[in-house]
């Protein structure tokens, strides 16, 4: 577990933000094996024994298990509160950054009735572009070209088209 593996930029948040608190499962995929399943079963058996044993009262058993659960949740809670780009202190700024391209494309498309998008090196732009153009219909869609770096929403209008991102 490394702090650097947590999605700390708008782009990594977009791609992996909901696939895990950090990118632990993504970065090492596929490396799962029987050992993970065996460890799960062994620890589960220990939990089952602790839940069933008469050596401790139900109350003590419950307190111990809840305490372990709380401790185990701490690394994830820390990542959510201090490391990810959507942590409370940064969420508003990350949201503004993530919506910047959407807002630019939507405004352009609405002015022209609707638009169609050409992805030229910015696959990560696809979801924002789709949301920006959804629900708009017209007979002559204007053109939106999204190049590498377009997520930063550095755009200019050229010959009736909206071009975002770095020139090739």
């Amino acid at each position, binding site marked *: 577990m490394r702090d650097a593996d947590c999605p700390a930029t708008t782009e990594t948040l977009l791609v992996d*933000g909901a696939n895990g608190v950090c990118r632990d499962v993504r970065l090492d995929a596929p490396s799962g094996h029987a050992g993970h399943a065996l460890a799960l079963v062994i620890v589960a058996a220990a939990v089952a024994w602790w839940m069933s044993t008469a050596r401790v009262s139900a109350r003590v058993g419950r307190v111990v298990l809840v305490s372990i659960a709380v401790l185990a949740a701490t690394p994830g809670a820390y990542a959510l509160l201090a490391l990810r780009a959507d942590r409370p202190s940064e969420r508003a700024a990350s949201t503004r950054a993530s919506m910047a391209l959407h807002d630019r494309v939507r405004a352009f498309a609405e002015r022209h009735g609707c638009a169609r998008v050409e992805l030229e090196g910015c696959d990560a732009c696809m979801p924002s572009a*789709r949301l920006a153009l*959804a629900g708009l219909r017209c007979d002559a869609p204007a053109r939106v070209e999204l190049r590498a770096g377009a997520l930063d929403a550095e755009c200019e209008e050229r010959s009736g088209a909206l071009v975002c991102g770095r020139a090739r």
Partner: protein
Amino acid sequence: MIVPLWVAAPALVASAALGWGLDRALRWRLEGAGAWAIRVAVGLGIVVAAIVHPLAAIALGVALAVAGRWIAPQEEEVEPARGALVVLASATVVIALRPPAPLYWDELVWLAKVRMGALALRESALDPAGDVIPRAYPIAGSLSEILLAAGRDDVGSGVAGAAALLLLALALALAAIPQERRVAWALGLALVPLAWVHARSAYLDLPVGLLAVAIAAGLARGSRASVIAAAIAAFFVAGCKDEGVVHALALAGAHVALAGERRRAALRAGALVAACALVPAITWRVLLAAHGVHAEDHALEGAGLADAGAILGELARATWDVRSWGLAWPLALGAVIATRARGVGAAWLAQLSALVLALLAGGDRLAAFALDGSLVNRFWMQLAPLAALVVVSALDQRGSSTSNTALGIHS
């Protein structure tokens, strides 16, 4: 900035009114705070089904009418609702206190569907050349969000519609869970870090998991209200995602298989849940086929079988993603073992097994997503809410068996 949940008020009120009317017409005689969650879900479900196809609404209505006849009312005290309301209010605050805009990939994709509007979405989803991504997915979830967003096309309203659907799923789960376990269950789920991410997103995996709780807990309780909650939850879970019908059928099947002496009552309740799940699932598949739209992502091709070992390995590895899950999975599995896979533990095992089989039976894209790590935690998110109930139930049973022993009571 907050999520404008108030935009969902007209749809919630209208759905509640429709659900209340059905309650009166069908003589369900639902009572208590949970009754309103059920009425809202029923009203919304009927309208959504009608948009998908009028026959779907009729079929759903018939199933719900049969529920009123098949499931006898039980003499139950109306449960205190304070715990459920505290949980629902707390969840509302958590979900609302954020900028009303998406941050994660699939959120933007789902919200694009919401922005299309109900009729345009349906038309485009059933057009082989239609511009809908992902193609051929069920649309009941998106239709619900559109209605809850009052048909508005701004991003904030779409986020509010998605949040309202999540809260409705939570309310249904709370209506089905026994009163004494609601708060503990919610606290248990709150100890899962990744649940906080999904709760504040427009992803459907957490709502699916909550609806599965409503099904399992509703069937386990067996009262008329809880079975109706389970049935309408089954409609929504199957209408939101293709794997939703797998959840519903697995939970209904486990309930029937383990019914023991109450087999006849369990068969009726299980059949109702299965029927309410099959209505949207079959309707949608028939409509897709009739319009020549091919479901690529979730085609039954068995592509995962060739990589079964690797996929199962990835699922197992994900259970040790401690930053996402804490120790949720060893605790859940331990609780199942401790209770000898009885009750909700058996339901959860059935849910898990069925989902694994569905994953292995799916197409190339599904297998690829499982192997690249982007699907496995969302797979587990659909199982997390019921897993939390398994743990809480096991701890409860331990406490009550110790008390019984102390009092000289032995089962």
